[in-house]
């Protein structure tokens, strides 16, 4: 074997936290140390190179190391494995580091791993395959070819925009507005087609929204970190199409690696003349600038983001006049999400009509989701639109952890909604999710099992939004404050008859009367859980019972002696030392010490930690006999 090998070490944020950098160092050292012996007849330096790539998406199994061209994927690699990996090059893969599929068989190739098998990577096409700091890596995979062709051949902007319209691409940031139409509108106003313009060319701006803020969502971070040139090329094409000479990448300041990689990519793109004062010698200009977000969730909202770029307070404005007409400094502005932009060079390379073949009739292409929560395989996945929830959760995600029962999947970030089991076969696209009271949002997907309390879930999200609302308009700020108070009351046993109806009434007020989309969608977590899990709300309020056994004020824990195997896991997990027992004596919970945190139940593998309605205090008073039975295991 004399072929040169590339060792691709995943250095996304997740893997870096798991010491991927040390793994890469160790592999480099091992390659150098192995010398010519490792690969017969080839100089050590040519035999293998180590490349640090972006995120492969399967973070919980990181650090991930891939060997090309053999197409071997290793998981949970530690620095100590480096020598073994290098020694195996050209021979048998290191079995201990391969993934085991659901049938417990070892899989070598990435595409044989059930997590990756049915993914279709377009937005994530380069991530994990290239070193984001090396522009040649991006170019080797077809990067900047489209931009260069458009500019050198002076393709009319209308042609570029039409291609986007034909592709059916819709904004991946959440709202799902057709990207091509947005570009066309802005280009029209910029060229003087606007109603109140005098016919002269107006300055226009392009922006990339990288202010990802949904808890549990990290698709944009991964793209910015792993394929910054893809985003820059998309933004540069957008600028060409609408006639902008200035653009901004608004990236939240917490995304340190993304900021670093995008800055470096901007510098190298400018050095190659893809952006700057004289693009590819044509005299065209495009200045791209990074603006760091200050950590406000609401600044992901388009108008608040523009306020923030202008140096104003990040509060949304009404969108009776769209940003495509009057955005930044009142000039036509296109704002696209990171994932939207990274799709653009791909679409123009393959053709809009070809792209439109993917996905569903009204939502074309693919979508990146961050699949997290109670599933066996969590991570970043990209699938064609129209894949069913069941496919995402049970095939790619490998089903529910510990074989528990699926209860709901929360989609669309904090202002998304919870979708129950009866809609598991729902085909996921923009309209399908909205119809069910949830939304696509940026693509967060949190899977919940029967140990999740839906009232508590609603309370958590409403609490998040109450803090992250900009606080400008009354319904959103005050409505969320009251909803949070009522939900807290319900989860702590102070719910009152009529609370559910009041929550609905407040929710409708927010939906109709709020200023921006944050407020209009903020009641979704409450309204969708009331819609599908009303009985759970009622149990809290009227019976004083949390059916899922989550809300501490309403829940007592006990150990079912018959099911208990005396494994001691619960005792070890208990933070207050409330559990007594050993092989001889049955395990029991001392109720005087128990704080109902649920750690014992989470630790138990035999369903022997059970819950029932609280037997003491105010909450139990109205609970009666219904609270005595075993309500959940």
């Amino acid at each position, binding site marked *: 074997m004399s072929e040169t090998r590339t060792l691709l070490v995943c250095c996304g944020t997740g893997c870096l936290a798991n010491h991927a950098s040390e793994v890469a160092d160790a592999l480099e050292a091992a390659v150098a140390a192995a010398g010519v012996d490792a690969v017969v007849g080839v100089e050590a330096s040519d035999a293998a190179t180590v490349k640090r790539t972006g995120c492969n998406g399967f973070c919980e199994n990181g650090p991930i190391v891939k060997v090309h061209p053999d197409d071997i994927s290793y998981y949970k690699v530690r620095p100590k494995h480096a020598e073994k990996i290098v020694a195996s090059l050209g021979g048998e893969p290191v079995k201990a580091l391969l993934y085991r599929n659901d049938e417990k068989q070892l899989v070598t190739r990435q595409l044989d791993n059930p997590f990756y098998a049915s993914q279709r990577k377009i937005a994530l096409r380069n991530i994990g395959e290239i070193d984001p700091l090396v522009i040649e890596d991006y170019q080797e995979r077809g990067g900047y070819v489209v931009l260069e062709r458009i500019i050198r051949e002076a393709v009319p902007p209308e042609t570029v925009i039409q291609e986007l319209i034909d592709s059916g691409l819709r904004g991946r940031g959440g709202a799902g507005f057709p990207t091509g139409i947005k570009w066309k509108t802005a280009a029209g106003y910029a060229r003087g087609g606007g109603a109140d313009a005098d016919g002269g060319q107006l300055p226009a701006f392009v922006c990339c929204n990288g202010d990802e803020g949904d808890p549990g969502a990290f698709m944009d971070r991964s793209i910015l970190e792993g394929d910054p040139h893809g985003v820059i090329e998309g933004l540069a094409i957008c600028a060409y199409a609408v006639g902008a000479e200035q653009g901004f990448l608004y990236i939240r300041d917490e995304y340190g690696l993304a900021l670093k990689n995008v800055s470096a990519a901007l510098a190298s793109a400018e050095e190659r003349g893809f952006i700057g004062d004289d693009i590819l010698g044509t005299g065209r200009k495009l200045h791209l600038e990074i603006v760091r977000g200050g950590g406000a969730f609401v600044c992901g909202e388009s108008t608040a983001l523009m306020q923030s770029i202008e140096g104003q307070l990040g509060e949304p404005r009404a969108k009776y*006049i769209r940003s495509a007409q009057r955005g930044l400094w009142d000039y036509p502005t296109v704002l696209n999400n990171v994932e939207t932009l990274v799709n653009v060079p791909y679409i123009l390379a393959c053709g809009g009509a070809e792209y439109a073949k993917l996905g569903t009739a009204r939502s074309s292409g693919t979508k990146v989701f961050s699949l997290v929560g109670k599933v066996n395989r969590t991570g970043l996945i990209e699938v064609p639109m129209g894949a069913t929830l069941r496919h995402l959760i049970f095939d790619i995600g490998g089903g529910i952890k510990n074989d528990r029962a699926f209860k709901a999947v929360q989609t669309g970030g904090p202002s998304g909604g919870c979708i129950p089991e009866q809609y598991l076969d729902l085909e996921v696209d923009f309209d399908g999710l909205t119809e069910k009271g949830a939304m696509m949002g940026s693509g967060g997907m949190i899977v919940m099992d029967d140990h999740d309390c839906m009232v508590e879930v609603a309370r958590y999200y409403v609490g998040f939004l109450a803090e992250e609302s900009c606080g400008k308009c009354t319904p959103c700020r005050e409505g969320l404050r009251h909803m949070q108070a009522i939900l807290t009351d319900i989860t702590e046993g102070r719910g009152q008859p009529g609370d559910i109806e009041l929550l609905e009434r407040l929710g409708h007020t927010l939906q109709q009367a709020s200023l921006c989309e944050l407020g209009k969608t903020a009641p979704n977590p409450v309204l969708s859980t009331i819609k599908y899990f009303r009985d759970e709300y009622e149990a809290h309020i009227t019976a004083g019972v949390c059916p899922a056994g989550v809300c501490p004020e309403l829940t007592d824990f006990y150990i079912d002696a018959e099911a208990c195997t005396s494994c001691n896991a619960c005792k070890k997990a208990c933070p207050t030392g409330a559990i007594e027992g050993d092989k001889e004596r049955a395990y029991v919970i001392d109720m005087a010490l128990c704080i109902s945190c649920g750690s014992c139940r989470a630790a138990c593998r035999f369903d022997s930690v059970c819950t029932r309605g609280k037997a003491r205090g105010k909450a139990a008073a109205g609970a009666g006999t219904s609270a005595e039975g075993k309500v959940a295991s």
Partner: protein
Amino acid sequence: MSETVKLVIDGKPCTCEKGDYLLEVAQRNGIRIPRMCYHEGLSGLGACRVCIVEVVEAGRSRVVTSCIYPVLSEIEVFTQNEKIKELRGMVLTLLARLAPNAEGVAKMAAKTGIELPRLAVKEGGDTCILCGRCVSACEALGSGAIAKVNRGVTKEIATPYGEPSSECIGCGSCAFVCPTDSIASERTEESFTIWGREFEMQRCSVCGMPFTTQAAFAFLQAAQAEWEPGAEQQPPLCEECGKKAVARQIANAGKYL
């Protein structure tokens, strides 16, 4: 050349210039839409949501904020149908819980007939409804002594770090525009105190009456010097004496016509 747009408000056919704000169009046609943060001298804030109305355009209905909604096409407007009554009532109820001591708000909220004792009064809530008029007035005057700080349920109006602001000129515009008299200030012959700062009063050079703060007068003079470089600095004149001075100028100018 501006374009004329036809619209119907609560059944009444009206016309306006394209781009006019709906609340003002209604007002000109004798229909007063309830409002709280709207002020004719400040650009639309759209914060309180009391002036929401229902707009039907080409069969599509939506709830809009009339103070910042530009009329661009033929629409039908409902300022007090059942839907709007409910939503506006809820908004006013929310405002009344936020500012339990604001009398005007309490009166408007009482009229809605909505009683929701389950909604608790905000802890520490007094008269401020967080509409932002004061901040807007301060900005419009060219200062920046106060701002909306924090976000979400913790939002408040304050000076930087809650300390007396060096930007404040004691002009009192913030208190003047406040719809609920929420900004505390104290005025004597000699001084004006607001936002934790005490300002010396400026007396009129003619009648001797204190009419603004010295800091505010100096600010205006500086602003004037910027607008009209080289122009003669005006002596401090109270409103009354200022009017007289202008009247004299006009009279003198007329003499030689």
